[in-house]
């Protein structure tokens, strides 16, 4: 048997999908390693959901190759993926536990095990008292948490979460983030698909940014961020700011100023200089653009 840990959780190679003349996914490739959180990022209509549906074998790509844990797509690979669709929904007329058990059994989990796993998970999110309630009796947020439990009940090695935080209140958002990090700790691969780029920034290890079906950015989040750095620092201070060597420009932002560096002087030097000048520094931050800003920059450049 192959060492599963060594395999990438998902491998997508040159996938193309078009509907009529409209190419929805155009030659997209990426790999997701085990134990990482991978951001699939792009605006609405970029082709994220179509890519995911192809990974789930719900729709077939026109060309290209998809492998899950080293295997090409089959009924078995479906059992190893947990999928939280963007369009949420559960059976309204049956109880929470019945829903969990039935949907888990369709993922190949034996019925009794499915029930006990279901109870375990409900306990984890403090919803065990609701297990005999029908989904229609629960609040929207609770329903979403149940839906998330459906995604992880069969202990999948790869999780695909499409807009997982949409419509969640802050408390449940935190709960969900906590569980996601917990799962990463267990070595699961997690794909977060979202158009709210800033929301997942803190979570992702690597990202794939797509727009209009094409890859625009792909790689380590930290690396991408440093690549798109403006080479400036944010400064909030008390006192008088004199000329600083290495600073070529200055922009007032009200509360703080942005200092543009010449590209050779490291930010550390600026801070040292300020300290020696006796300026009281309230905030000193190397500016890193948000994913939103990076996206806008990349798209601008592409035009």
């Amino acid at each position, binding site marked *: 048997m192959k060492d599963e840990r060594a395999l990438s959780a998902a491998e997508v190679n040159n996938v193309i999908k078009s509907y009529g003349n409209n190419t929805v996914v155009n030659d997209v490739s990426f790999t997701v390693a085990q134990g990482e959180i991978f951001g699939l990022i792009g605006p609405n209509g970029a082709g994220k959901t179509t890519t995911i549906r192809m990974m789930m074998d719900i729709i077939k790509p026109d060309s290209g190759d998809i492998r899950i844990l080293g295997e090409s797509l089959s009924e078995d690979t479906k059992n190893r993926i947990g*999928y939280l669709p963007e369009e949420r929904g559960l059976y309204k007329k*049956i109880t929470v536990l019945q829903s969990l058990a*039935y949907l888990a059994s*369709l993922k190949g989990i034996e019925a009794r095990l499915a029930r006990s796993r279901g109870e375990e998970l409900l306990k984890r999110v403090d919803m065990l008292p609701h297990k005999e309630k029908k989904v229609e009796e629960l609040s929207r947020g609770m329903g979403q948490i149940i839906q998330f439990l459906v995604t992880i009940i069969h202990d999948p090695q790869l999780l695909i979460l499409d807009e997982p935080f949409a419509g969640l209140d802050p408390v449940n958002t935190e709960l969900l983030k906590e569980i996601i990090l917990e799962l990463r700790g267990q070595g699961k691969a997690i794909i977060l698909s979202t158009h709210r780029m800033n929301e997942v920034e803190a979570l992702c290890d690597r990202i794939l940014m797509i727009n209009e079906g094409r890859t625009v950015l792909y790689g380590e989040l930290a690396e991408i961020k440093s690549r798109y750095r403006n080479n400036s620092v944010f400064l909030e201070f008390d006192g008088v700011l004199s000329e600083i060597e290495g600073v070529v420009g200055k922009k007032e932002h009200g509360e703080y100023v942005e200092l543009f560096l010449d590209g050779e002087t490291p930010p550390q030097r600026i801070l040292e200089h300020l300290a020696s000048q006796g300026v009281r520094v309230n905030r000193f931050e190397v500016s890193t653009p948000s994913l939103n800003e990076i996206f806008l920059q990349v798209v601008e450049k592409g035009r």
Partner: protein
Amino acid sequence: MNKTILILKHEFGQVIKTKTFIIMTLAFPLLALIAIGIFSFIQGIEKPPAPGEEVTIGYVDEVGNFSGYTEQPGEPTVTLMGYDTPEEATSALLAGEISQYFIIPSDYVDTGVVTRYTLERELEPPGEIRWAIKSFLLSNLLEGQTSPEVTERAKAPLGLLTIRLDETGEVATDQGGFGALIVPLAVGFLLIISIFSSSGSLLQGLGEEKENRVMEILLSSVSARQLLTGKVLGLGAAGLVQVVIWLLSAVFLVRWASTTIGGFPSTIQIPDNFLVLGIVYFILVYLFFAVLMASIGAIGANARDSQQLSMLLIMPAWIPLWGLFFFLNNPDHVVSRILTMIPVTAPLMVFVRLGTSGIPTWELVLSISILIAGIIGGLVLAAKVFRTFLLMYGKRPRLGEIIKSLREA
């Protein structure tokens, strides 16, 4: 376990637990049971008049010929008492000596009109009284004209008994008539009702899963083919349970009714191949509707939208009902034969014909073959439509798009 079987079990379990299903399944046998019970109860309390009871009827003979046969035997025994004038008869009636009287007018032989006077308010003259008066008149009229035996026969000249012979000249087991029609016709109706409710559940289930987006989760666990197969078979199995309960209770109830009630119920017959045909047609027609309904369910934007589309399929199935009177009288007409062949109208038509003139074997075989071909064609269609449109939410594809996707698939 196989995922198709899991879906089958789930759908089956969900349907047979619904109130509608339980009520529908038990309602028909229970109603029939109650009807038979009430019937035999009424028959029990409606006791025949006590033997030896006598009724005295007065009459005024204005012709002058009616004087004999004043004792009419029967239940009750009727005694006729002659009076000279209507006034005398009226006072005898008011005094309670007679219960009623009638006047035979002088022109009776020409007109045949007899006027009857009574104190009772009644719907129509009681049969025994009518029979007694008729017998009294006839006996007096034919007095001396013919033998007493002929007179008796003239009172009831026809007791028509029809016997159907089969090809060999032997008395046929299936004697036809309303007794033979009633069970197949009722079962034909029930069959259609069950087919519609089963395939309707399929349609509604798909619509709901589309609406509440469970569809996407299901398709991320099973293939569209597994989902379709599991659903069709699961709901079909539930419908089959219903139909078998109905068929068996029909057989049981008819036997019971014919022994407890007698009369018309004892003439009710159940065709030999009835159970088998009932089950075969349920399965085939259900499958035919189910695959088409599944396609409609995939295309429709939501449950309500699908329901409207499905009317296109359901309406034609009732055609045999619209023309029921015609088809009952002309079961072998060319239109009846054609409707037996069309999958949508076949179930009702087959049972209408089964209850009237019967269906030649070759027609049954042809009808079943066409149904099977229809199912296979429907499956091919459904498989294509299903995958393409199942995840399209909120809008129904235009006809052009559907045709295009069928060609591309």
